[in-house]
């Protein structure tokens, strides 16, 4: 008997009540049932305590210097880059666009989709790194918007690893700044940027998949 109401427990914990849905007899029946059912009361209590514990965990916020650095990079003069690098970057960017657009198409509201594609859809003659940044910004926007749907542990793992990738990006940029013609530094930078795009795509995919529902 109890199991027939399991699908309503989530909404109940979210604060939805039968009074908010006049005419929903099933919801009203569930609340009557809940008043006298110790099993359902225990489930509600357990979920509520889990939610309380989760909300007590520290919220990770990207450091301001990250945004300042991205803004500074976008305004930088184009660097000398090898001829093949924009091609490789364009290929990666196309993958990123395809991935994020597909995910957005599948799951996100129309305005979010428009925002993301507006950020990354128009090919330009900007330096490869700027194109990477545009792709990353689009994915980051999606990931940030949906991060709350991930469980705190998974979110922490992803953020810790994104921080590791950001360190790799910073170190590669510093090396490239010292030696702009270094193909090795350029490759290291694009390796790290590729990894960041892949990680953000994974993050967005995790928030969209039914696996977590």
């Amino acid at each position, binding site marked *: 008997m109890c199991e027939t109401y399991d699908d309503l*427990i989530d909404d109940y914990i979210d604060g939805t009540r039968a009074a908010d849905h006049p005419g929903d007899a099933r919801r009203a029946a569930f609340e009557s049932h809940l008043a006298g059912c110790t099993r359902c009361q225990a489930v509600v209590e357990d979920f509520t305590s*889990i*939610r309380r514990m989760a909300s007590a*965990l520290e919220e990770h916020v990207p450091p301001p210097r990250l945004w300042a650095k991205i803004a500074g990079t976008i305004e930088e003069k184009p660097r000398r880059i090898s001829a093949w690098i924009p091609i490789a970057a364009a290929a990666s960017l196309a993958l990123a666009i395809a991935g994020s657009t597909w995910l957005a198409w599948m799951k996100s509201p129309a305005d979010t989709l428009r925002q993301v594609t507006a950020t990354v859809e128009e090919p330009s003659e900007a330096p490869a790194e700027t194109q990477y940044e545009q792709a990353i910004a689009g994915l980051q926007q999606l990931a940030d918007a949906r991060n709350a749907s991930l469980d705190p542990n998974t979110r922490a793992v992803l953020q810790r690893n994104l921080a590791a990738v950001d360190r790799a990006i910073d170190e590669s940029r510093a090396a490239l700044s010292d*030696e702009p013609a270094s*193909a090795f530094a350029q490759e290291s930078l694009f*390796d790290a940027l590729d990894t960041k795009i892949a990680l953000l795509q994974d993050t967005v995919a995790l928030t969209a998949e039914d696996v977590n529902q």
Partner: protein
Amino acid sequence: MIRVFRLLSAFLALFAIALPAAAQNEVTERFSRTSHLDQDGTFDLTNVYGTIVLTGGTGRDVMIEAVKRVQRPNANAARALLRMIDIQVTEGANRIEVRTSVPRPRNFPGSVDYMITLPQDARVTVRTVSGDIRATNVRGELLKSVSGDIEIVDGSSDDVVTASTVSGNVSVRGLKGRTTQLTTVTGNVRVDDVQADRLAVRAVNGNIEYAGDLARSGRYEFVTHSGDIRLMLSGATGFEVQANSMSGTVRSDFPIARRSEEGAEGRRGGVTPRGLRGAFGDASAMLVLRAFSGNISVGRR
């Protein structure tokens, strides 16, 4: 003052997590299902939390054994939560899909451990959020975890085999694959005695170790940012090598006919990539090794 407050908050958070763990009741429930796959069928499994063990066999059956687990202080609540873990198996067109779903909230205190026996020629796709994946004698095409380790033992595939984890380690032994791609961000990668025409390994903070022979005409690309790259080769196959590290060392036990004494890029300005570019023997295999700050060594096994 802020630092003290943060420390206090961290202790309180740890206390809150540790307290319920001290008096947990674990309830479990078994799930069992056997299905059939024809030659080259597809097996696709998605899990959230829990270990996945796959074993390839000679039969045509796919045997799915799973154990659902929930740990809570209140045994009745644990049993109720257990019933909310849903395993759905969908069969169709020589394809079996297994989906694991858990209800919100997202930090659900349960898991599902899977033990799968399946035809060794089955195409396998496994994705999980938190949990290890171990595949033995399986034609794995995609194994993906966020915070678990991935281990592949034996097995063969003519397709691309991809193993990807974010914070876990990747270990591959005895795999025969045409193209193999292994990635992790903060874990390590270890590869032993594989046969691959093309092997690409990428890490950011992790080490990469490879031990075994090289395939003639094989291409091996190992890239890490701050980890070390260590190859132990039998030397039976000659190879051309391009190895570079920005701030680490590059060393080879093999006599390499060098193309540049100063490294692949030579000395330039304040940045000195340390590199090695040259050939050993008939140079039939290709090694591309890049570590930004880690060390690179190519030794004899």
